[in-house]
């Protein structure tokens, strides 16, 4: 067995400080520390409080990646402080490390934020099993291992908020339910015992607040410390919305379906037709000014010049035989 050597490095921490009761504006305070290769980010938060400033505030509890209390941002990266190795952070960002709360605009005191929006969104998706329970059951309601696999580990979420506050849409659109709550919605949609019918999926299918406003940036997948991969669940919710017939015809649903129409006709995407089909004949008019500019620069292919993929018959045949969804 090889010996494990503990090394140390000098690191300058720029730490977000703010007390909503006393300060008008937040400020950053610098702490220079010797960091050992064994430490995690939470150790640094503890040392700031214990060795430098007892008023420094942050949430912490289990120290084992279970309670989800200690998520913060390290150089802008959502991080569960008790799980994240300082060595990895130094390797990634160098010896100047910025510690900030998950959401600066929701800061109450130092690393502590008001997570009300997170919990409200979570509550919005019925994050529980909807089921009529027989008061006198005669047998257990067994769920097979295969059926559990279908949850795709969505049940591992610890509600730390790392993905929610890494999501650029949450930052911009206050109605957006967000990746954590979507993952929770999937967790119960995928449960064979659930009897919510269409009520939960309808909630996440609404435009502006629901899955259709996802920009597909994969920030949530990167941010999650439990590898829940929320965007994978968002795709699943899209599929369920179509399967349950909840995805009614609108700009967002037609945008997804429109790809199939183009592919079966040309093999390739007909960009102009996709916009027209998604927006409708009236809605498409708002794109005319940009379309004219693009046309003048040779960026628009007219319908009769639309290129086609070779072996289009093959594509048509596969689309016919492999389609699994209806609209």
């Amino acid at each position, binding site marked *: 067995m090889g010996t494990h050597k503990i090394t140390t490095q000098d690191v300058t921490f720029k730490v977000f400080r703010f007390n909503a009761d006393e300060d008008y504006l937040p400020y950053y305070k610098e702490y220079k520390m010797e960091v050992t290769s064994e430490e995690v980010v939470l150790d640094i938060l503890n040392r700031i409080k214990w060795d430098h400033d007892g008023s420094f505030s942050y949430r912490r509890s289990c120290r084992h990646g279970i309670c989800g209390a200690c998520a913060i941002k390290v150089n802008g990266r959502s991080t569960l402080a008790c799980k994240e190795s300082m060595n990895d952070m130094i390797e990634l960002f160098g010896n100047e490390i910025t510690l900030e709360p998950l959401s600066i605009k929701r800061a109450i005191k130092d690393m502590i934020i008001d997570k009300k929006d997170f919990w409200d969104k979570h509550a919005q998706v019925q994050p529980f099993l909807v089921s009529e329970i027989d008061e006198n059951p005669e047998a257990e309601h067994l769920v097979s291992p295969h059926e559990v696999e279908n949850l795709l580990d969505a049940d591992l979420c610890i509600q730390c908020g790392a993905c929610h506050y890494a999501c650029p849409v949450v930052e911009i659109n206050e109605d957006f339910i967000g990746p954590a709550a979507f993952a929770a919605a999937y967790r119960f949609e995928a449960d064979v015992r659930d009897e919510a019918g269409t009520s939960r999926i309808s909630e996440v299918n609404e435009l502006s607040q629901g899955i259709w406003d996802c920009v597909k940036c*994969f920030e949530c997948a990167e941010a999650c410390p439990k590898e829940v991969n929320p965007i994978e669940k968002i795709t699943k919710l899209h599929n369920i919305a179509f399967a349950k017939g909840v995805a009614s015809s609108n700009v967002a649903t037609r945008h997804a379906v429109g790809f199939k129409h183009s592919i079966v006709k040309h093999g390739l995407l007909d960009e102009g037709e996709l916009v027209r089909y998604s927006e409708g004949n009236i809605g498409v008019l708002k794109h005319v000014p940009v379309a004219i500019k693009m046309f003048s620069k040779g960026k628009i292919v007219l319908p009769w010049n639309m290129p086609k993929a070779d072996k289009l018959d093959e594509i048509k045949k596969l689309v016919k035989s492999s389609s699994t969804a209806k609209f």
Partner: protein
Amino acid sequence: MEKLKYALFTGCTAKESTPEQMMSTMAVANKLGIELIELTEASCCGASHLQDYDDFLSLVLNARNIAYAEKHGLTMVTICNTCQLNTAMTKHRLDHNAELKAKVNEKLGEVGLEYKGTSQITHFLYAIIDDFGLDKIKEMVVKPLSQFNIAPFYGCHNIRPSELQNESHKGHENPYRPTSLDDLIIACGGVSVDYVEKNKCCGFHAELQAPRTAAILTGNAVAGAMDANADWMVTPCPLCHLKLDTQTHHASVAIGREVSLPVLHMQQMVGLALGCSSEELGLKHHVTAVDFI
């Protein structure tokens, strides 16, 4: 060095709204002596939207595209981040799930094709950095971009999810601190500009269904580059390019500030440094004029 040869998956925009991207890809490949065999049979990758409607169909179509690269016995090169994502994600899922692979192959069998998993998939950006080599590009630069501050805009689907980086960039690119495009700017003699939005989302995929969100993200990206004193931006993704090049009016309205910068495709930037003409690189096809040439 043996001549580099790839199967080129152009994607749809190269054939339609970003002709300059196709032109500059071929011009740069020609300069570098890279042979690109175009997969003319390839279909649209579904652009991360078809899968929302029909995931299995999306898998079958992408597997078919890869099967054609495999027939050539070549690595597939993409020139669009979203094509890269969808194709590499398909490969990742099929290579890690024998049952799914068998189901997909059952369909491909109907048209006499098979997905084997023998071709790698990489974006042209990584092909020229990893396979051709930055040092060699540097040696070939005839017109260094030393007078320009250039803002790299990475585009989500080349850098996230990081599990797919192993498929395309040998795991070298960290989504929180990507370096490939910065390195390429420097190799071309330019000054790479650091700014917060360089690895953030441009909003393209929600442009129709969430126009305000999409416009704000575009606005933030261009504003970030402008505030970092960039002369222009560069991106490996034609979808980011469309958003940043053609949508700045909406973006300016959305963020309440006039924002606009010329945006070059990664291939155009390399092409300029290698001495290609602006005609070869299709610079006249930009909505935001490339006025510094």
